[in-house]
């Protein structure tokens, strides 16, 4: 019983700063995810139209290599370029998001039956309309699964942002290690897990709603 009341007391004392850490954590992750979605998805779509195999392979190789760099090393590598704080953290997380988003979007679009795309072209859809009205909706489940996987990873990796002084729940854990404070470590961990789960559920809902709208036969 003591443990629980102690923990509740801890929350009562510190909820201000805990909330600040949560907010920081969410901000770092969110900025990284949004940037990745906005930049990588269009890049992947562009790559599906790219004729130059060499350039395409080079991009895939780079994103593969990025994925193999250990998180802590990646963050350290950012420091010479971007200093410490928010920027290097977002940049590192962004680079981790490249591969899953790129690969999912690319294969999602490539998996579309070419006859569908060809008939759209033959019917007079412009390249942009083809992407927006035909290819994106058809590749949507793939793209969405890429976004979901990436989001969960990024939230968990954002713990390490504290190492480069960006704050977030990682700060709480690092401090917990320093003070040998189990409550801090536990709080930092559990909150990060909850944020990741919450975001996954929300994104899952969004996906389902959009798909339902399509299957419901609404005229978009």
């Amino acid at each position: 019983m003591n443990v629980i009341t102690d923990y509740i007391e801890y929350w009562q004392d510190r909820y201000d700063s805990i909330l600040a850490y949560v907010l920081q954590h969410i901000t770092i992750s969110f900025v990284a995810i949004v940037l990745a979605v906005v930049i990588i998805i269009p890049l992947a779509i562009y790559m599906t139209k790219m004729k130059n195999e060499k350039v395409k392979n080079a991009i895939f190789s780079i994103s593969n290599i990025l994925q193999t760099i250990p998180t802590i090393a990646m963050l350290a590598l950012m420091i010479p370029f971007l200093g410490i704080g928010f920027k290097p953290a977002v940049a590192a997380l962004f680079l981790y998001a490249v591969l899953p988003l790129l690969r999912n979007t690319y294969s999602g679009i490539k998996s579309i039956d070419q006859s569908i795309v060809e008939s759209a072209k033959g019917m007079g859809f412009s390249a942009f309309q083809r992407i927006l009205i035909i290819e994106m909706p058809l590749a949507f489940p793939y793209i969405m699964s890429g976004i979901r996987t990436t989001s969960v990873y990024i939230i968990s990796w954002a713990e390490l942002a504290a190492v480069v002084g960006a704050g977030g729940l990682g700060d709480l854990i690092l401090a917990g290690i320093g003070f040998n404070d189990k409550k801090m470590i536990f709080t930092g961990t559990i909150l990060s897990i909850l944020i990741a789960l919450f975001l996954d559920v929300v994104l899952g809902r969004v996906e389902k709603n959009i798909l339902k709208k399509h299957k419901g036969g609404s005229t978009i």
Partner: protein
Amino acid sequence: MTIGGIFLIKLEKVSKVYADGFQALKEIDLIFEEGKINVLIGPSGCGKTTTMKMINRLAEHTSGKLTIDGKDIKEIDPIELRRRTGYVIQSIGLFPHMTIYENVASVPKLLKWDKNRINDKVDELLEMVHLDPEKYKHKYPSELSGGQQQRIGVIRALAAEPTTILMDEPFSALDPISKEKLQEELIRIQKEIKKTIIFVTHDMDEAIKIADEIILMKDGVIVQKGTPEELLTNPANEFVKQFIGQDRLRNKNKNLLPSVKEFVQSDFPTVTMQTTIKDAVETMQRNNISYLPVLNDDKRYIGVISLYKALDKSTKLVEEIIENQSPILENTKIRSVFTKIEELNPAILPVVSHAEKYLGVLDRHTLFLAMSQVIGSKSGV
């Protein structure tokens, strides 16, 4: 739409060389007949699909001139061109994430039609292919059979009221029964809409069945262009014969309705203007017939006389009781002969050559036997 006698789609010395040096088309001259089903046919690699795809600029010609309504195709915006050219492909290519309504409405939507107009159009088209709009509009393509899906594919191409429709082997992936049905439907629909249809196929039976005009190609050149009848009766060379197939050439009289020529009874008794009534009546009685064709001295057809009038009047010569009855030309299609029989129900049908020479009369008995054979050989269709 023809402007000042210019045909809708015209190719002049059009060639197509691919980047790898392969010459798909060699200086093709071709005019697509307006308002007709033009079938491009030939073995694979003959350039038929390339020819078709140049018309909506899915393929670009490398030299020569391709004009639509007199306007060079290179000056027409490809997107706009494609929106006013219907396009149906073999693999159907319906959008799986859209309902039937949305699929059919897609080009009208791109053209920003009024919503009510789109609605009416979709209903009209679904009814045209005998699919109940209320039942099918909100279904998805995957809920339809292959034949139904391609019906949607065809009406989707018609939705924006294009003047030209390109069809790239649209029925070749379907089962034989659906295929047969869709071909018949296409012929029926074409009678209503009268579009210029450019239809690519490799199936000669299909071409003979649906084409107004067949364009037979080989190795990037046009080998022969003509109606199915012309190709069957007058193949230009060995390749055409071979491609059509010996069976079809031999059976052309079964597949196509034979011409009048085949049923002329040339030994039917005749009389001249100067024959006496008495002789004429005798001839009729001897042969057990009640009508006789009358010829002049040059064996030209004049008219007919009937036994009824010959007996009734106290005349002396045949020329006094001649009745006017227009003869049939030797190359008349059997179909129109039937129409004539239906309308006039003449007792005898005299047949004349182009030089107006009398050939004989149409033998209804052999015609009837031949027709029953044709129908017999086609039973089950």
